[in-house]
């Protein structure tokens, strides 16, 4: 976990320094008290101290192997990648293509990636999740879901 802790500290350090820099561009103090940048500056200081402490402690600690199941197997990486790709495509095309079509494709694809490959299960669930949910949210609950260029 030594490397993991080193990377964690480094990433947090970069993040808090970036936020601290942004905070310095804001007004730090006003005649009536702290300004918009006050909290950001001090949070960046506290965060940097914690991150540097983490890095130093990790550097001084003995190297130990990662737990056996820390990294997923290749099939696990593929499943996670498939899920994230599905979500990204859904976000990208939701408003253009429309909720019904995109949710149907999302459900079919992601269930397939996760291992549900039986067509007689996959398709009805996808239909219920797309058309059924659209009807529930749009017509019954009066909530807007994107219709897209196809009008559904």
């Amino acid at each position: 976990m030594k490397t993991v802790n080193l990377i964690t500290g480094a990433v947090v350090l970069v993040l808090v320094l970036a936020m601290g820099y942004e905070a310095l561009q804001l007004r730090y103090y006003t005649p009536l008290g702290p300004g918009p940048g006050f909290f950001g500056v001090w949070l960046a200081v506290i965060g940097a101290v914690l991150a540097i402490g983490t890095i130093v402690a990790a550097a001084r600690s003995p190297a130990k192997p990662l737990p056996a199941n820390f990294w997923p197997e290749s099939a696990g990486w593929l499943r996670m990648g498939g899920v994230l790709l599905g979500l990204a495509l859904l976000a990208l095309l939701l408003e253009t293509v429309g909720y019904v079509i995109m949710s149907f494709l999302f459900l079919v694809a992601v269930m397939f990636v996760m291992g549900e490959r039986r067509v007689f299960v996959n398709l009805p669930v996808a239909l219920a999740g797309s058309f059924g949910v659209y009807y529930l949210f749009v017509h019954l609950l009066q909530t807007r879901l994107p219709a897209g260029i196809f009008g559904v």
Partner: protein
Amino acid sequence: MGDFGFFLDGLATAMQPGNLVFALIGCTLGTLIGVLPGIGPVAGTAILLPIAATLDPIPAIIMLSAIYYGAMYGGTITSVLMNVPGEAASAITCIDGHAMARKGRGGAALTIAALGSFIGGTTASLGLVFIASSLSQLGLRIGPPEFFGLIMIGLALVVGMAGNSLPRTLMSAVLGLFIGMIGIDPVMGAPRFTFGMMDLLDGITLATMAMGIFGVSEVLSNVERQVGGSMVTKVESLTITRQDAKDSAAPIARGTLIGFLLGIIPGMNAVVPTIVSYSIEKRISKTPEKFGTGMIQGVAGPETANNAHANAALIPLFTLGIPGSPTVAILMGAFMMQGLSPGPFLFQSHPDIAWAVISSLVVGNVMLLILNIPLVPVWIQIMRIPPPILMTGILLFCVIGVYSINNNVFDVWMLIIFGVVGYVMRKIDMPIAPMVMTVVLGPLIEQSLRQSMEMSSGSFMVFTTRPIALVFILVAAAILVLSTWKMVAPVRGADSEV
């Protein structure tokens, strides 16, 4: 005739068949609204406002009130069963509630949540009847300095939740505080940490973050291993055991007090009582290290505080005419649509309506218990759905939920990002709960501090010259010092890996 006599009259009105039907409709709709991620009590109450306008005043407001506290329970169901908070105030329940469900004890979690919600909600409603006037005076004495002190107690308790790694807990809390600052500065109106992106001007909603960091990351953690079987190893009895009841009694009592006292403070966020309750339960537990693994106290306390707050938040509305939360503001709108002005004069001009609505809160809480306890076996069947279908459904509901908040696909991207962040945090053993909690507490602390300073023309003495504020701050400092000492002292001289 005293207040109790008016209450009994109101109870007789609330128990009329027509009004009971509307209370039942409200409780059912409220539970459903709470279950659906993204459709919170605010949206649900607002959606049904036009329908309520067509009804007579008493049934209209009875129904809308029932939706309000019904949604608080509904959000618990998805928190426990799917690790997706149905509404923001149920986010804390995800921590131990879902852990209980994975051990096959989801039924017990839902049952104790229902019982705790009933006790907390009913107690708060009775408090409204008998001691509303005195409590509203106390609520009026809570200004920005006192508010700051209260929230500092909440922050100190979050720090006190650190398990084995104080630095990781603090880093998680700091990151949460930064995330809470994204958007428009609450006092001066300047954009902060938006990096030029218009979509970040509204900040990052807690619902989006919570659904990503709990729901999406849970799915990612599940799919990295082989997906198959059931999400629980076995489903045990759906009823609670004697030990469950014994373990839950004190947390429910504390949760009732916490939710009730915080509910009477106008402007107190509904999430704060759940954070305070969870933090206290973990703090005083003899086995704090077990929190997060399925401790029933981690469900009983927050869920009770949640419903107690929801009912107590109506006290400022009825006694002062001040809506304490967005949902209560919608309820106030319902009053005004009916030609009524909530506040002290309502009791003089329309005592029959005021007391009927107040009495219906007690009836509604009973109804919610009767409605939901038998439905626990129905809800628990959700856990038997094959994981690929259940998890894909969870993802889709999360997307719909966050999209429907602002009709903005940017929120969906935030959902994905926080899902990845949550997955990574689980991997590197960085606690998630502090980040979620400080996203809520951070803006409240900053706003109250800066408002206090403006009140005193820039002098920090405002916190020492107001006794209530001073007491709160000293309590927060004591909690922080004790918590830090307890964590640091045992590892002195021992090698510790960060």
